């Protein structure tokens, strides 16, 4: 069957699926129609309501737009073009300006809400993902995912004042109800500072970074033990209860345990005065229930009367409703920890409301009566009546009515429905189609055997075979049989779904490399590093054997010869030493390194794990030269 035929059948299948999921589609008027842009999906990611509740601002990640809707009629008031891949936005305190974080442009767009025109575009850090404004109109704060920090900008000029160290993959910011503090979360676990030699076998650590808004300094880091991947935070109106949505991976035990207690716990972390005084450890509570998992909690909102917590579950296509009094009673009367207890959530989860594909940002109307959910991968907004706990309307974004094979592949990537009991999906380990910064014990070959580092899947075409042992010759094998067998332990993809998933994975683009300026030559240090990368003689003038040169194994545009080598990194718990050569694309972003994630940094690959020069001739390098080599690698 040709790919085109597959694509056509995929489209039909997807349309049928879409018809099944959409209960109230097509009511919104089409005002931005362009039939030629067959794949021009909006992909709504975040939502905001104007202070008077009359407008809904919709941040569209794929169409690079903010769509302004009438909150009553759902009609489009205006579409405002912003930067590339916008992922977060916020309103100024009086609501007169909208700040948009454009994650691939490294900019913030400022939109005047009266004119709905772009007022300014400001440069910020690497991959801005979220932005909040203080209450006094003095500063905005921007979470930069790649530079792992929060930039502090003048709210009127955009001039950057300072950078604050946040967690790794700094991504989501929330202003406390009193405006005094900002709470920042991050999507990748923090690297360990302790050198134990077993960093890849220790549980992940994350944090909620607390920033004093007036002083613009970090004042506290709330520890999130065993959590890797924290998303939105919400507060009760009185500011006494904070809630963070997060992922609690069980990467230290073989994934065979999917059947015996799941690979990820999908949790909420509770903190704040209702939980205890400052310094009290937060409480992590699971949302999952046996055969009813709340996969990948992302958006959070708390009812104004503090009766309910609403959580969008990005992988389970639903909104989980938590009863706060029941929850508080549960944590008061039950001794923790609760994460391993699949029966816990029955004590406080009172509803699970099906919504659209890949629900992300959520927001409540001021009276708490309506809950809006951005369904990113079916271009809809679900509106839930919070008294009825059900969807009462679905607003459809303007865009293609058909589901292309590529879109279906993306939906497949982000859903959890294919895994055993719907526990997790591809996007659990490949957050926003990247990676998760973890080393996993995947196969059922004993605890701690063949631990593998998770690799980036951007621009993956032409880097096969896959798996660290090079065992899978192509993506259909990697994502089909292997995934079904080892990961999902459940139903297989049908052929068309696998084809579409493959299509999507092969299409995942490479994020812009921030170490190499477009159209500019390498810096002096990078150029020196490039020469070292390609050298054939060592510092003593001795010829380096071909197989011991960086450029031999890491050849080609993507830095892989697509062959396997033994680079001397085999550990006693590894089944074999012959390893696939990983691609070097965006290598600077993907710590930890080596097949088992044992090298915390690029430097450690050579300073610790290459004693015999088997991983390239490097022991003759001076420290300056090693730094130059790494500067060059950061440009790949």
């Amino acid at each position, binding site marked *: 069957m040709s790919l085109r035929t597959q694509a056509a059948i995929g489209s039909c299948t997807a349309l049928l699926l879409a018809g099944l999921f959409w209960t109230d589609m097509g009511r919104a008027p089409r005002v931005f129609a362009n039939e030629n842009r067959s794949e021009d999906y909006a992909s709504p990611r975040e939502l905001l309501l104007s202070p008077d509740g009359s407008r809904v601002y919709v941040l569209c990640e794929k169409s690079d737009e903010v769509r302004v809707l009438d909150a009553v009629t759902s009609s489009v008031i205006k579409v405002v073009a912003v930067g590339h891949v916008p992922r977060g936005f916020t309103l100024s305190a009086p609501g007169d300006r909208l700040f948009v974080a454009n994650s691939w442009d490294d900019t913030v767009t400022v939109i005047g809400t009266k004119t709905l025109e772009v007022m300014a575009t400001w440069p910020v850090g690497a991959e801005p993902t979220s932005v909040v404004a203080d209450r006094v109109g003095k500063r905005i704060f921007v979470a930069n995912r790649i530079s792992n920090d929060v930039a502090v900008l003048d709210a009127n000029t955009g001039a950057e004042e300072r*950078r604050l*160290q946040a967690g790794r993959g700094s991504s989501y910011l929330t202003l406390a109800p009193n405006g005094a503090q900002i709470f920042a979360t991050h999507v990748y676990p923090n690297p360990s*500072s*302790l050198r134990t030699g077993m960093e890849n076998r220790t549980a992940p650590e994350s944090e909620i970074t607390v920033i004093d808004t007036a002083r613009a300094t970090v004042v506290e*880091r709330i520890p999130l033990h065993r959590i890797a991947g924290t998303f939105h935070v919400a507060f009760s109106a009185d500011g006494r209860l904070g809630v963070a949505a997060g992922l609690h991976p069980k990467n230290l035990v073989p994934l065979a345990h999917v059947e015996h207690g799941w690979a990820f716990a999908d949790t909420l972390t509770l903190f704040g005065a209702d939980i205890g005084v400052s310094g009290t450890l937060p409480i992590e509570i699971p949302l999952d229930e046996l055969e009813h998992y709340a996969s990948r909690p992302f958006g959070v909102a708390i009812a104004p009367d503090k009766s309910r917590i609403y959580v969008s579950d990005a992988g389970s296509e639903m909104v989980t409703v938590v009863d706060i009094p029941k929850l508080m009673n549960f944590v008061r009367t039950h001794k923790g920890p609760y994460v391993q207890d699949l029966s816990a959530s029955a004590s406080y989860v009172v509803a699970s409301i099906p919504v659209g594909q890949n629900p992300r940002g959520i927001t409540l109307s001021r009276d708490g009566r309506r809950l809006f959910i951005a369904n990113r991968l079916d271009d809809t907004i679900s509106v839930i009546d919070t008294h009825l706990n059900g969807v009462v309307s679905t607003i459809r974004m303007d865009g293609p009515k058909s589901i292309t094979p590529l879109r279906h592949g993306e939906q497949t990537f982000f859903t959890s429905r294919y895994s055993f009991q719907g526990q997790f999906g591809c996007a659990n380990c490949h957050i926003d189609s990247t990676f998760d910064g973890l080393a996993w014990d995947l196969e059922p070959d004993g605890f701690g055997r063949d631990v593998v580092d998770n690799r980036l899947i951007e621009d993956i075409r032409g880097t096969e075979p896959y798996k660290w042992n090079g065992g899978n010759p192509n993506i259909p094998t990697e994502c089909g049989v292997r995934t079904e067998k080892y990961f999902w332990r459940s139903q297989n993809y049908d052929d068309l779904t696998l084809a579409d998933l493959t299509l999507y994975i092969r299409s995942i683009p490479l994020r812009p490399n921030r170490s190499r300026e477009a159209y500019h030559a390498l810096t002096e*240090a990078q150029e020196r590093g490039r020469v070292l990368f390609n050298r054939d003689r060592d510092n003593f003038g001795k010829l380096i054997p071909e197989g011991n040169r960086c450029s031999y194994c890491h050849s080609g545009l993507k830095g892989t010869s697509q062959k396997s080598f033994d680079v001397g990194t085999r550990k006693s718990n590894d089944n074999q030493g012959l390893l696939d050569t990983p691609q070097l694309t965006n290598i600077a972003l993907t710590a930890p390194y080596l097949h088992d994630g044992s090298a915390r940094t690029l*430097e450690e690959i050579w300073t610790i794990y290459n004693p015999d020069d088997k991983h390239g001739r490097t022991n003759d390098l001076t420290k300056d030269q090693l*730094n130059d080599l790494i500067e060059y690698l950061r440009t790949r």
Partner: protein
Amino acid sequence: MRKLFILAILLCAGTCVYASQPRMPRFQFENFTTANGLPDNHVFAVLVDGDRIWAGTENGLALYEKHVWKTFNTQDGLAHRAVISLALDPRSGDLWAGTMGGLSRVSAGRIESFTQLNSGLSNDVVYGVSIEGENVWIATAAGGCRLNTRTGHWSLYNERNTPMAEIWTYAVSATATKVYYGVWGSGVLEFDQKTQRWDKYDDPDGENEIVLFKDQGLIHEIVTSVSYVDGILWAATYFGDSRYDGRYWHNFLTKDSGLPSNFTNSVKGVDATRAWFCTDKGLAYYDGVNWAVYRPSLIDGKPEMTVRDASGNVSSVAVHSAPAHNYILGIDLQGSDIWVATAKGLSHGIHQP
């Protein structure tokens, strides 16, 4: 009658001496040791962070906050137990600690450590650290480094790209205009931020211990500390100290100044005219004209403060307390108060009006 006359003369003379004694700052010293919570009495460095005090000791990084000491050590992620230099990023509030085993960043309780194995840091022995904008300038036993905290880029400075004859950098003082390195055996290196060029200042006497050319250059090649403030470079060596205004050098030796010893561990410039000198024989303060020395007496250990005026007259001031030890390693200022790192404890000098 004659006796009374002599007594009156003596009293008058004493009063005159006292009246002509320059008014130098006086302190009531409160000393901290392991007995009241300090993790180690050997305190290499001290840093004032608002109401909080950081102390780099031989056994951990100590934080004094709300009258309680808290210690961070290797189990908390600190690069090494011996903390020998400290710097505060005034913008973010992050503390940078140079240790005998790497560089640590302490940010609201989280410690991230950089070593020669896991980062671009040139050497794990970090003698000095200084913050300039988004750059962290580092003095190590194998040359200088600069970490750009925004890009993560490391720049190394050594004999290959600077006029550094030795790579044992002992101190660094960085500002937006100039960066100075004190090099153990290789004078002072100057980096001009505008031109991106290096310059070097040496002792015109070479490595001789004899001072042949006073005030014609740096006092000695073994530089232990540099402090650049208000366009003035203050440099400390084991053989005297220097002040450089960009044109003229002025050297300080025990024989012609109020320095209690030429062996100076560190210097902290207050402004263009005033500076504190930490020596092996006490703490010295220079106000541009006069000197004051604070220490336990070298003879009987009793608290001692002496003042030397511009004419070289030395007088004593009655005091009831002194720094914990006369081997002074570091100082920082907290308003009018001082905090002093010594070989046997940390001292808080509470200013006396």
